[in-house]
């Protein structure tokens, strides 16, 4: 996001809070953005299922951000929560897949080593 966009977003959040009196979902926005970043750093895009949820998270974040800018907090909040939940799911699916693959690789190494030891190679 460009600095000008961030500024505009902050102005909108402040204005929206003043106009509606409803709590500004800035923390929700930050949390969903953070969750998406974490999923990206974890390599969710390289995992088919993880990539699908990551994409859903990005789309919902983008839509939610528009509503935040428009001052529609009520519509923005569930979208941001959905985005965060999708990003976390992408993260955990990727973690699960990586951990299972690593464990399997180690088990394969054990089996291979056992075979070579039995064969006296």
């Amino acid at each position, binding site marked *: 996001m460009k600095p000008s966009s961030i500024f505009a977003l902050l102005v909108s959040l402040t204005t929206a809070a003043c106009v509606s009196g409803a709590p500004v979902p800035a923390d929700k926005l930050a949390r969903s953005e953070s969750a998406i970043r974490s999923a990206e750093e974890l390599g969710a895009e390289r995992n088919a299922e993880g990539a699908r949820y990551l994409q859903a998270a990005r789309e919902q974040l983008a839509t939610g951000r528009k509503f935040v800018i428009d001052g529609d907090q009520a519509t923005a909040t569930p979208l941001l929560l959905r985005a965060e*939940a999708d990003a976390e799911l992408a993260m*955990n699916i990727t973690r699960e897949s*990586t*951990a299972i693959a690593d*464990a399997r690789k*180690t088990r394969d*190494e*054990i089996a291979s080593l056992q075979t070579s030891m039995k064969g006296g190679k």
Partner: protein
Amino acid sequence: MIMLLTAKSTYASLALLTFTCGALGCASAPPPRELQDARAAYRAAAESPAAVKAQRDIGEAKEALGRAEAAFDDDPKGAGTRDWSYIAQRKAHSARARASALTALDDGRAAKGELVALRAQEKALRDHELDGARSALAGERGRAESERQARADADAKTRDALATIAGMTATQSDRGLVLTLSGSVLFASGKSTLLPAAQARLAEASTALKADGRSIHVVGHTDSTGSDQTNLTLSRQRAEAVRAYLVSKGMTSGRIDAEGAGKDHPIADNATPEGRANNRRVELILVNAKP
């Protein structure tokens, strides 16, 4: 209703809630697909064997499902019901995946420990085999060296013992120690009967040969005078005569064999009388044992 929601087991509470609502007809609309999926996902996550590893995540899913149920009670067709159902379902899946990831991490750690132990075991085994091979090699080298030394000693001893016998020379070859007796010392021209002087010398030699212990290969040679067949026959007969004499002096017959080589392996020029005299000879080869 609130009392039901605060029951100790959420699963039991939800089931009871569903049953109660159904029995009383309190919810006129059936739960939306999203809520049904969220309930199923939560049940699967909470009941999974690894659920205990992701209690915090299960708790978050439970809370989201509670909000979805509350939203459904409030407005069955409202956006809140769909939103919270969606979030609850994602959180339940997320909790299950996290629990599974933690289980896999534990398994991976245990496997890595096993692998480290196995590698150490393999290395110990390899080191042990290597030590064994080194020892065997050292033993083999020692044995080979002992044998070589024993052979050298035997050669020296036999050479010393035969050095005083006139008309006999000893040389070392790849096959063993070669003792050469001049044909003129052993036989009359064209004959294969040992001369008396030759018998005396062979008798002396037999003492050293018996002590040596190696097998003896007796080979007769001629000069180039005469036909091939004649030379071959004569050389064989002379070799046989030497063999028979040594056996008569107490050498084991199985230790000695004889062959005639005719004129095929000259050691000197057949064009001169001296050369021909040198070519007429009998060799006693003390055969080295094969390693």
